[in-house]
């Protein structure tokens, strides 16, 4: 059997050492770059910064709740205000600045064009613009939110506004009557939304225009299918959010009376508008995650993905059905029982394509040759957390039980399992999976696995007990609680410390790998998607010669070669 290194044999050694990271130097070359890979890295820095901020506040929130009564600040009224500003900041930053953009903007940006064998996305300038929208919108948003926290904690006014204390959902009429700075905050979210729309447009155009020879729609890697579904939702749903937020601003500044009952408006209308975006947005968060898991599970089982077309189609089904279920957030609002019943029924239909995916991933593992490397550990963690999150969703879709657990910690636990457990775990799986490609360095495998374990244990410790607290009637968004809930909150808080420790280990591992990591081979894991067929890190143009795509899961075409600690293609 003859073995040849395939990827870019025609590159000279000198050309090989030149890559997108060192092609040009200096801060300026980064800030005006049109290279999708560099833009991906810019996003990485910004989004990880937002995640850090949201994470610090998560730990602060949990610390405030470690005992009943005011904890961090002694004066009760100020302590409650402080908590309300903090949970708004945490929820809003995590949602709008971390989970929605993390996978598409960082990993999607980096990987999508390479998977397509293309030089770049379809509209590189638009891509840079969308990064700057994210950056400016984000800085503005964080500034408003942070200054509110500081003001309520220390009484120091940073500017005239007063932060945001509405929660990330901005429900009227609270948001139209609170004295906090709703208008500037909404403006920040609005700009962030535009960034999201532009990225979606760019991805869809890229997938339509840039697919290489040999890549039919049904030979597209599943990560790309997932990004396709995501982008479609981003384009269709985000404008609804933008309009809703503008209406909110109009209501607040001009008192137009869309939501204000005193002027003939309807406060629940806002909830309809809001969830018409935000429910599909949940799938913006989860679909790309599922895409990553499909890649990782297949590659680390060394086996063709099971039920490719079922998975691809279920992504599209989820994207479509996701638009029809927004009303399940309003079962207790007093909307008509008929509407409740219809929304409940539709909600259950979305659970089916999700279940299909879980079975497909398990079936992919069946008969495989499973390697429990770091990305695979996160992927298995994902399957567990997503299953728990999805199954507990059944309690929320079912009318009788939702009435009881709605707006309690049961919901907090549920959405952390689906949104955070799944998105964060898939994000970490993807980051570890593509890290060698992105930076050309290997991280410490041992530390990577240990961290994955600690994060998993910490996560379950934090959120599992919240199901029990919620079922017992602990409402959410509470700065204070009855003594009988103390035990749940304490366990949860300790869990959050464990998880935070795990995430610090992840960060240390990454930073360490940049400094001391051994150089990565072209294809450390043996994937057959195109990004593994160029150098690590790739050159600025991605490929020396436009590659040809075949079945992205034909993993048997790659053999492990111990001398380069990576995989090489088996010549046919």
């Amino acid at each position, binding site marked *: 059997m003859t073995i040849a290194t395939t990827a870019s044999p025609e590159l000279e050694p000198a050309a090989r050492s030149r890559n997108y990271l060192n092609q040009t130097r200096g801060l300026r070359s980064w800030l005006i770059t049109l290279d999708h890979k560099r833009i991906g890295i810019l996003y990485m820095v910004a989004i990880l910064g937002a995640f850090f901020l949201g994470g610090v506040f998560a730990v602060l929130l949990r610390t405030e709740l470690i005992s009943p*009564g005011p904890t961090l600040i002694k004066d*009760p009224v100020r302590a409650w205000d402080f908590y309300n500003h903090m949970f708004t900041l945490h929820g809003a930053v995590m949602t709008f600045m971390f989970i929605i953009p993390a996978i598409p903007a960082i990993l999607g940006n980096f990987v999508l064009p390479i998977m397509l064998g293309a030089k770049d996305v379809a509209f590189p300038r638009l891509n840079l613009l969308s990064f700057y929208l994210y950056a400016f919108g984000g800085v503005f948003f964080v500034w408003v939110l942070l200054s509110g926290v500081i003001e309520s904690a220390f009484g120091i006014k940073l500017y005239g506004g007063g932060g945001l204390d509405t929660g990330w959902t901005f429900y009227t009429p609270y948001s139209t009557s609170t004295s906090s700075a709703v208008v500037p905050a909404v403006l920040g979210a609005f700009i962030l939304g535009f960034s999201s729309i532009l990225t979606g447009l760019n991805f869809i155009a890229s997938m339509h225009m840039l697919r290489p020879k040999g890549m039919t729609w049904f030979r597209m890697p599943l990560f790309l299918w997932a990004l396709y579904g995501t982008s479609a939702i981003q384009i269709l749903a985000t404008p609804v959010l933008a309009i809703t937020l503008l209406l909110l601003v109009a209501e607040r500044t001009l008192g137009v009376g869309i939501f204000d009952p005193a002027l003939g408006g309807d406060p629940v209308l806002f909830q309809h508008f809001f969830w018409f975006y935000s429910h599909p947005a949940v799938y913006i968060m989860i679909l790309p995650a599922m895409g990553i898991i499909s890649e990782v599970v297949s590659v680390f089982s060394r086996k063709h993905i099971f039920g490719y077309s079922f998975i691809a189609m279920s992504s599209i089904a989820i994207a479509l059905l996701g638009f029809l279920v927004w009303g399940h957030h309003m079962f207790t609002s*007093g909307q008509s029982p008929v509407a409740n019943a219809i929304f409940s029924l539709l909600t259950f239909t979305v659970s089916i394509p999700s279940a299909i995916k879980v079975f497909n991933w398990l079936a992919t593992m069946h008969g495989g040759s499973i390697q429990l490397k770091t990305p695979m550990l996160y992927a298995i963690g994902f399957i567990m957390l997503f299953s728990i999150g999805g199954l507990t969703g059944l309690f929320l*879709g079912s009318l*009788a039980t939702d009435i009881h657990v709605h707006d309690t910690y049961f919901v907090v636990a549920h959405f952390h399992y689906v949104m955070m457990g799944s998105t964060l775990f898939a994000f970490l799986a993807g980051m570890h999976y593509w890290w060698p490609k992105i930076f050309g360095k290997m991280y410490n495998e041992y530390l990577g696995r240990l961290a994955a374990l600690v994060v998993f244990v910490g996560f379950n410790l934090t959120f599992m007990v919240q199901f029990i607290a919620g079922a017992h009637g602990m409402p959410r968004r509470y700065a204070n609680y009855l003594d009988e809930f103390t035990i749940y909150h304490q366990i949860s808080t300790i869990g959050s410390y464990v998880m935070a420790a795990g995430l610090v280990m992840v960060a240390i591992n990454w930073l360490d790998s940049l400094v001391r990591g051994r150089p990565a081979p072209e294809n450390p894991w043996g994937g057959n998607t195109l990004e593994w067929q160029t150098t690590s890190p790739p050159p600025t143009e991605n490929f020396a010669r436009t590659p040809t795509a075949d079945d992205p899961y034909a993993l048997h075409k790659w053999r492990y070669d111990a001398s380069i600690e990576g995989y090489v293609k088996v010549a046919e």
Partner: protein
Amino acid sequence: MLGQSSESSFWLPVNASSYGGEVDWVFYFIYGVCVVMMVLIVVLAVLFIWRYRHRPGVEPSRLSHNTPLELTWTIIPTIVVGFIFYFGFVGFLNMNTPPRNLYEINVTAFKWGWAFQYPNGHVDQNLHIPRDRPVRLILSSQDVIHSLYIPAFRIKKDAVPGRYNKMWFKATKEGEYHLFCAEYCGTKHSEMYAKVIVHDPTQFAAWLEEAANWAAKLPPAEAGQKLYSVRGCAQCHTVDGSGGIGPSFKNIFGESQKLRDGSSVLVDEDYIRNSLMNPGSQIVAGFENVMPTYKGRLKDVEITALIEYIKSLSEHYEAPPAAVEESAPEENATQPAAQHSTGGENTKP
């Protein structure tokens, strides 16, 4: 003793309403489905990870689909969720089909408290109901959206400004239960707590009669003191001079207050009455216009009582001998929220 403490299970608090049992049944049905599915997923995952762990020389299978299998795992979950939908729907229908002859109580939610108004006009900050009698609550809100939640009854409904939402239930067990606000409503959302007290049906009428007249039967300053906590003043105004959402009542009577518009006003009977009826008209400097109006919600005798109470908090005013804290009747009809165990400034002993 709180009802919850005795018979709650690991997952759910004690059930004290007629349809709670049905909700619990659906809950445990779904729970069963979840456990079965989760065990299946975990067992398969662990089994595969072990059985198909990477071993040099062992070739992975190239199987990539199996349509009958995939159809099976699409159809079975569809049937299972169909059942879950159906059971949840039936349980919900019962919550929406009240029997006749309901006992109606009007509920007003406000930042941050509840006013339960009985057919005879009595307003209470806790919800008192007779056992075994279907009760309907008619919910409205004075400011933002709140949500009335009684875990022991498995029931929750939003109080939306500008509309009347209705909910009904039948309590089946005497005792005291929690009542929370479940929709985020600002600063003291987590303090918006009340109790549900389920009375023996024969004693309920007697309680109501007694409760309705309590203010008239007490010396005014003492009645005022209770009204201060019962009607939600305590949520925002302290009586010891410390800070709050509104001005403290300590030593204000007979003094002049600086208003937001720069003018001043003497705190006398007229001023206090006006502050209750038109709270927005004379706002003390340094405070927001957040107080709800009490127009139509307080009887004259109650307003007088409140004025007497505020007078009694002023050093210049000589309290009549009856205004002693301990003399309140022990019947907890109008027990202030201040006594729940949440902590916070309301809980000062």
